[in-house]
């Protein structure tokens, strides 16, 4: 009995993973087919609601524009996430270390998240000028909060007995951080990052549609990200292109979310995973 259990462990995981990819894909296909049927049968104007086939054809026709936009938005998201991760982890660790700081800083932090992004975005441009800076700042603002909270909670969740051992050994704060806390809090931090990437994509869309690059005599071409593409497409009644850009944004967010989920699983296989020895 024991040997069958061990040898099928890998196939159980494999099967589970395939299921978790096939199921949403299947659902997507069903919904897409229904949408297409609805749009065609009711003869809906593609300017109002493009059918999936319209969106797909725009993805092909406008592929170079969309790819360029995707590239720009992705780089803002990744750049912003990187900074947000560093800031968020540092802040979370600081809040964990000092309960007084936490009581003072936390309400301000929560308040900062309540400012609506569409209001914040133009304000940042007024304060910081045009270009990449206000875009990155916007993404960092929306993304660092979940990371900070997740870090703080993860650190707080570490076993108090380990804490006793560390105190007994006379470990310094930095030793504690290096040897125990960072590695132990990592799964929780990654959970926070998963949320953060989704917020970052949303933030990047707003940031981007509000701050495209300029043209000069030396550089007469400018480019924007996917948010800009959506904004441009609407008054030109190119709703299919707008949807195509939105679909790409959704795909970006999903990809980042899933890959972090995979990282999270690698860091900390769940106790119920068949890889665990009984």
């Amino acid at each position, binding site marked *: 009995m024991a040997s069958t259990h061990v040898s099928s462990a890998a196939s159980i995981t494999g099967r589970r993973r395939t299921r978790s990819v096939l199921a949403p894909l299947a659902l997507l296909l069903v919904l897409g087919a229904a949408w297409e049927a609805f749009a065609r049968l009711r003869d809906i104007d593609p300017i109002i609601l493009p059918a999936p086939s319209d969106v797909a054809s725009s993805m092909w026709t406008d592929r170079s524009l969309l790819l360029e936009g995707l590239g720009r938005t992705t780089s803002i998201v990744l750049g912003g996430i990187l900074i947000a991760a560093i800031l968020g982890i540092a802040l979370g660790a600081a809040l964990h270390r000092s309960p007084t700081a936490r009581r003072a800083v936390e309400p301000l932090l929560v308040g900062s998240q309540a400012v609506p992004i569409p209001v914040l975005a133009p304000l940042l441009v007024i304060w910081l000028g045009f270009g990449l800076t206000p875009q990155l700042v916007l993404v960092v603002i929306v993304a660092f909060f979940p990371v900070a909270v997740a870090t703080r909670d993860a650190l707080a969740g570490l*076993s108090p*007995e*380990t*804490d*006793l*051992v*560390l*105190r*007994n*050994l*006379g*470990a310094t704060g930095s*030793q504690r951080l290096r*040897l*125990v806390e960072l*590695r*132990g809090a*990592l*799964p929780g931090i990654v959970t926070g990052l998963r949320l953060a990437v989704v917020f970052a994509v949303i933030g990047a869309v707003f940031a981007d549609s509000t701050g495209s690059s300029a043209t000069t005599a030396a550089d007469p071409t400018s480019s924007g990200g996917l948010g800009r593409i959506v904004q441009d497409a609407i008054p030109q009644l190119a709703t299919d292109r707008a949807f195509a850009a939105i679909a790409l944004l959704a795909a970006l967010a999903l990809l980042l979310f899933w890959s972090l989920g995979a990282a999270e699983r690698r*860091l*900390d296989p769940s*106790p119920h995973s068949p890889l*665990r*020895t009984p």
Partner: protein
Amino acid sequence: MSVRDDIPPPPAAKNARPSTDGPARDLGPTLLRATGAAAGFGGRDVIAGIDLEVRAGETVAIVGRSGCGKTTLLHLLAGLTLPSAGSIDAEPAALMPQRDGLMPWATARDNAALPLRVAGIPRREAHRLADGQLAALGLGHAAGRRVAALSGGMRQRVALARTLLTGRKLLLLDEPLAAVDALTRSELHELLLRHLATGGHGAVLVTHDLDEAVRLADRVLVLRPTRELPANQHVPSTLHPGPTLTGKVGDRLEHRGGDVLRLALLTELAA
């Protein structure tokens, strides 16, 4: 509170070591001396009037009800809490907390090596030493396994390895075998006996398991309030000497002597 006099001393049990009555066998230097120490929190002492001396080579067991301050006592002896009265004079102690304190995401090796890493020993060397200690405790094959995947008994051994790797002579063990099933427990008893004896450690072992106390320790002390707790009044616990063992360290004490001792201890606790 005294042992019954009409019971004859028990015959030597099978696995017994040569006994020594009278003057104790060779004990090393004093590792810990507590004099009239008290500790607590929130302005209230949980324990008071603690007098205790532990020398290298001996194991002292402390038994008591849950909640009477055993953990506070260990923290006091470890220097994690300052005494509110009296004094503690002790070498640095290695504390093994009640729920092993292991990092579940890390390997047995990482966990065991923690004291070495804190002491500044580079990782490779620390791991090598940890592997050695784990092997001595029968875990050589599992050194690279994550603790989360280990059984309760194996985890206790990892925790013990970590405790021994501190290099400290004074060991403070808080209910080390509480979370382990009965069968594994007796295996671990053997292990503990072997290592405590050979290492020349002085150990304070807190336990609620009387058999364990009797089996592992040279002396048993009881931690309880000195008098009955009147309603609504708080009386801190103190150490009371347990009855003198009539058996020998390591005896299974299956015979009447052991029963008498056990009975006596139970009477102590109930008092």
